[in-house]
């Protein structure tokens, strides 16, 4: 009953599958600042495009007697940027807004991740808690801002609260999505190995969520900037941030200062967004074992 015996019975147990593949893609991993520089080229291009349109509007579209509505960039920046009486307060205001953004973002991130983790652990928790997140997202924030001012005053804490309310939802939604993204088979594997809830969270759900968390972070960062400015714009009291200055300049028709403030605000947003985009690339790329890209 014993049929064909194997001749090469004790050859090496398994055949070699070949050489390890090279890890890197076409673009070799440079230092982080190189990546940042390369990635900022499109942004610089966009700024150039805006400047061109600006000049075109000033000199080609506006008649000479209305040119004060949009003075050319070199006049705006040349005169205002060197004017310490304007730039001093503006830098201070930008600093305050930056502070609110950073603190608001940190709180939104911690809160959002914690909220999503709790929801991911018990189905009932998700049922109960998710509606609050949705309400927070859909509530007209502009109606809420004055109330927050009345309740919490117009200082730093109230501004941070506005910032958190605006920024937290993408953190919650993306983190929850990521925590739930592990495959049923992977969950079965953990069940079969009798993993504890904590082990499942730490070794399966949370690592699976990392890319989504970074997506959430990028969105939350952009919204945190907006949140800090919105709070500031509507609180007419307290130490002014850049949002408050925007309102003041508008009311006084200080077009030059207004344009500089808008530009700086935009650059601030771009900077925050870029930092997280670069971070996202670096971390998530490495997460799956590719270097660079």
């Amino acid at each position: 009953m014993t049929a064909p015996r194997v001749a090469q019975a004790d050859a090496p147990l398994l055949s070699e599958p070949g050489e390890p593949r090279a890890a890197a893609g076409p673009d070799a991993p440079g230092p982080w600042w190189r990546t940042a520089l390369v990635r900022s080229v499109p942004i610089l291009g966009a700024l150039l495009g805006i400047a061109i349109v600006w000049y075109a509007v000033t000199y080609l579209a506006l008649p000479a007697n209305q040119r004060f509505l949009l003075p050319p960039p070199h006049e705006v920046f040349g005169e205002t940027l060197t004017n310490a009486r304007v730039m001093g307060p503006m830098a201070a205001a930008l600093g305050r807004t930056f502070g609110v953004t950073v603190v608001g973002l940190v709180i939104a991130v911690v809160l959002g991740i914690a909220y999503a983790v709790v929801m991911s652990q018990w189905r009932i928790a998700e049922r109960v808690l998710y509606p609050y997140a949705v309400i927070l997202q859909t509530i007209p924030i502009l109606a809420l801002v004055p109330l927050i001012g009345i309740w919490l005053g117009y200082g730093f804490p109230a501004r941070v609260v506005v910032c958190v309310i605006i920024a937290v939802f993408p953190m919650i939604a993306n983190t929850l999505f990521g925590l739930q993204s592990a495959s049923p088979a992977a969950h079965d594997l953990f069940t079969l190995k009798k993993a504890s809830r904590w082990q499942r969270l730490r070794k399966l759900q949370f690592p699976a969520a990392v890319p989504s968390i970074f997506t959430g972070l990028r969105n939350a960062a952009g919204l945190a900037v907006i949140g800090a400015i919105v709070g500031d714009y509507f609180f007419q009291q307290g130490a002014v941030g850049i949002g408050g200055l925007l309102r003041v300049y508008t009311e006084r028709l200080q077009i030059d200062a207004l344009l500089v403030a808008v530009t700086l605000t935009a650059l601030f947003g771009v900077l925050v967004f870029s930092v997280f985009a670069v971070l996202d690339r670096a971390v998530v790329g490495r997460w799956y074992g590719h270097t660079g890209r």
Partner: protein
Amino acid sequence: MITLTGVSTDQHSVTEPGGARTLVLEGVSKRFPTGTVALTDVSLGLGPGDFVTVVGPSGCGKSTLLRLASGLERATAGSIDVRAASTSYVFQDATLLEWRSAARNVELVGELRGESKAERRKRAQEALDLVGLTGFESQHPRQLSGGMRMRVSLARALVAEPELALFDEPFGALDEITRLDMQTELQKLFRLKRFAGLFITHSVSEAVYLSTKVLVMSGRPGRIVAEIPVPWDYPRAPDLRHTAEFAALTGRVSHTLGEHS
């Protein structure tokens, strides 16, 4: 041990009556809350050195059988007795954690068991060497081919030193050449480790080549309609597949399968 067909058995397809049995199912049925009856009255037993393959039409309850045997699902009737210190389950897709290197995927088993770092490193390396992945330890799943990912998955199953190993169509998604390769390697590993194996497949030739016994299931609700012992010793040469005896046996399995689909 229930013998459904009157076929003679040999030393591989059966263990001594009353001997140590790793997995015994008796009269097992599964009805899902949706009302679907996936299995009816399934009985089987396997011990160390048994490698049983299960073939049956799609949707007949083969995966359900494995999920019951592994404890992932509960039977609605009958009894399931598992006497294995360690059970491994190999899924259809490799089910690797994408953020971990090959070695760290294999180490996961030791981590969940609370083994020391040095211990699980050593054991993961041994398992990876065994499946021919020496030199690929630090590669992530996305950098590996489908066949290599399945090797990592096999290494992860082996590192647990399973007494019972369950396979749910693990090679189903691989191309033909890789698939034959993996079959050859799996039966070598089986010869070495002598676990009790239960292996689901759609391929009759795979079922015969790998096993000590082929179970044929009917269409839903699944039950075992035939039990066909496979005589050859391990390791088995790849060329075994081209012999007349092999063709005769696969023919018999296919025929039985056709009768009950």
